[in-house]
């Protein structure tokens, strides 16, 4: 099966074209957009880890190593598309337009962080694995029913493919030919469980065969390959040609979350030979004359400023309101909940 799903690459580890047919499609704007966002989300990611270590936010799920997959895909989507992320896809949502302060708030246990205040259709990160997959099918089916060309993307990991909801979602998408992109980041592990124990098959792409859904394996550390293959799938979906599955073969460089210790289960050198996705793009930029030292440092400065401002805003954010515990459960507070709320406020005030 592996032969049937070769890993599609546009550039190699050294940043050289493998597939020259993309030469025209790649231009300064795209290169810098990819580079900027990958940088931006990596800085965010590292900052967040630090904030967690300092106790300034809660448990955090880092995505270092997966920037090409997240940025390369997220840049394809348009304003009215729908994104259904997991807890590890805030690189993608930030790229798509989620607010950075709110993203930080999420990791600080604030409900304000699980919805984008902007009018973007970003779903709260799915915590129960694979549960978001049917949602993406439903939302994109809605777009199709309305006669729009908007699509939905579901992000999910290698581990998620084992859950029933993955299967049910794909089957629904196939039957109703919904404009859904199933975007898998195969990062090698589900917490401590390596993919060899998660499945006996060598690829995730082949799992689409059972539904007659077209699928592709792409080098998830090659931002171009991710970008262009996702784009093809998206264009297909917009044209009413139905769902696709993309397996982005990537690598979780760090821990599952800040509460996890990969040295317990991962051989020390595993993955060390994998070239970092940002390094790869840098090599490409240098090889093909896109590199501009000053532009990079200006960019980095901007990102740091943005980040620091966001962290400050997060920390200065108005305190959680206890009302919010009660007020968003129903469209109108039912009587018994009003009573619970009133009693609790009396309790707080020491009445």
């Amino acid at each position: 099966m592996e032969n049937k799903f070769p890993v599609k690459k546009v550039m190699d580890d050294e940043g050289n074209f493998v597939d020259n047919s993309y030469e025209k499609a790649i231009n300064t704007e795209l290169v810098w957009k990819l580079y900027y966002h990958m940088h931006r989300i990596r800085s965010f990611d590292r900052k967040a880890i630090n904030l967690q270590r300092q106790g300034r936010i809660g448990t955090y799920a880092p995505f270092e190593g997966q920037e090409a997959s997240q940025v390369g895909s997220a840049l394809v989507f348009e304003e009215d598309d729908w994104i259904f992320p997991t807890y590890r896809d805030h690189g993608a949502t930030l790229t798509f337009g989620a607010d950075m302060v709110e993203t930080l708030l999420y990791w600080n246990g604030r409900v304000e962080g699980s919805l984008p205040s902007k009018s973007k259709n970003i779903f709260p990160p799915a915590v129960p694995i694979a549960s978001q997959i049917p949602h993406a099918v439903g939302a994109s089916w809605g777009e199709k029913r309305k006669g729009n060309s908007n699509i939905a993307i579901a992000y999910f990991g290698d581990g998620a493919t084992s859950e029933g909801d993955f299967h049910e979602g794909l089957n629904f998408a196939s039957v109703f030919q919904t404009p859904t992109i199933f975007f898998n980041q195969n990062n090698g592990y589900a917490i401590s469980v390596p993919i060899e124990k998660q499945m006996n098959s060598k690829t995730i792409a082949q799992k689409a065969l059972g539904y007659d859904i077209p699928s592709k394996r792409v080098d998830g550390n090659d931002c171009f390959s991710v970008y262009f293959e996702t784009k093809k799938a998206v264009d297909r979906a917009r044209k009413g040609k139905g769902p696709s599955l993309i397996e982005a073969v990537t690598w979780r460089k760090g821990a599952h979350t800040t509460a996890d210790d990969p040295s317990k289960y991962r051989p020390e050198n595993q993955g060390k030979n994998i070239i970092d996705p940002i390094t790869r793009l840098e090599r490409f930029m240098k090889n093909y004359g896109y590199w501009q030292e000053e532009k990079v440092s200006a960019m980095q400065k901007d990102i740091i400023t943005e980040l620091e401002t966001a962290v400050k805003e997060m920390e200065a954010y108005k305190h959680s309101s206890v009302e919010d515990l009660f007020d968003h459960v129903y469209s109108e507070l039912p009587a018994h909940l009003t009573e619970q709320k009133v009693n609790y406020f009396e309790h707080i005030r020491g009445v």
Partner: protein
Amino acid sequence: MTIDIEMQSLSKKRTGYKILTMVQAINDGMKTMLEEDDTTIIMGEDVGKNGGVFRATEGLQEQFGEERVVDTPLAESGIVGTALGLAVNGFKPIVEIQFMGFIYPAYNQIMTHVSRIRMKTMGRFNAPMVIRAPYGAGIRAPEIHSDSVEAIFTHMPGLKVVCPSNPYDAKGMLISAIQDPDPVLFMEPMRIYRSMRGEVPDEKYSVELGKGVRVQEGGDMSIFAWGAMVSIAEIAAEQAKQKGIQCDVIDLRTLYPLDRQIIAASVQKTGRAVVVHEAHSTGGLGNDIVSTINDTSFLYLRAPIERVTGFDVPVPHFALEEHYLPTPKRVLEAILKAVQF
């Protein structure tokens, strides 16, 4: 034949009304909303040509087309999860779960998403959807087809749970449920799907969710029931009347949120209560009603509250189901026990 003629004549009694069974009233409620609101869609197993295994969606696909009345693959989690995606994108799905005992595969979707999406997004996204589920024993159905599990849903903030006991309420409450901005689990007592007929207005009307109703008035005893148990309670109340005991029979109708006012008002009048439900005793909603009375009406109570429920055993294969289900006789004994306390 005789029945048809009877129906005919009954239905002529009042214009603007039809005499319908409960399942017909439910069908009528969906039809009303499909006509009125384009975003309403029906999804489920066998709801299309077949019109549902109980014929609740009979004729609707024919009238509204395959786009509005959708036969889905056989996958409850997928159905509910997909419906949620549609709901946040502006649709109002009415999901049919074929039997309540087959809702369990969808439990994760209902528990972690459908009921929480409003809270998770502070109202930005919400799930105005209805999950219809025929429930209960008494029709000699195969294993698992007869479960009554409201209690695993009344412990799920964000969801509303309702259960009509007659055709009029069924249509009116279903319309309310479809129009409700929150997700509603709509339980349908299949045992009385067809065994009872009643006047149902042709037009659109709604019965407010969250409100119980007194179906029989009396000052000696409060009986609380819903769905198929309402008529069991009524029969027992009639028998109690023969013995000089006047019962307040309350059809709770909405199981979450409970109408605590009607419960308290009745018990404060009678001082005694019997709760009747099909579900198991332990963990059953009856315990919530006991608590409600404890919380609101402690000083009024003159006897322990009696609960007449399904036993704490799995709903049995049908040869024994009559022994599982509450009967008027068991209810009557509970009434007498409370009176004689």
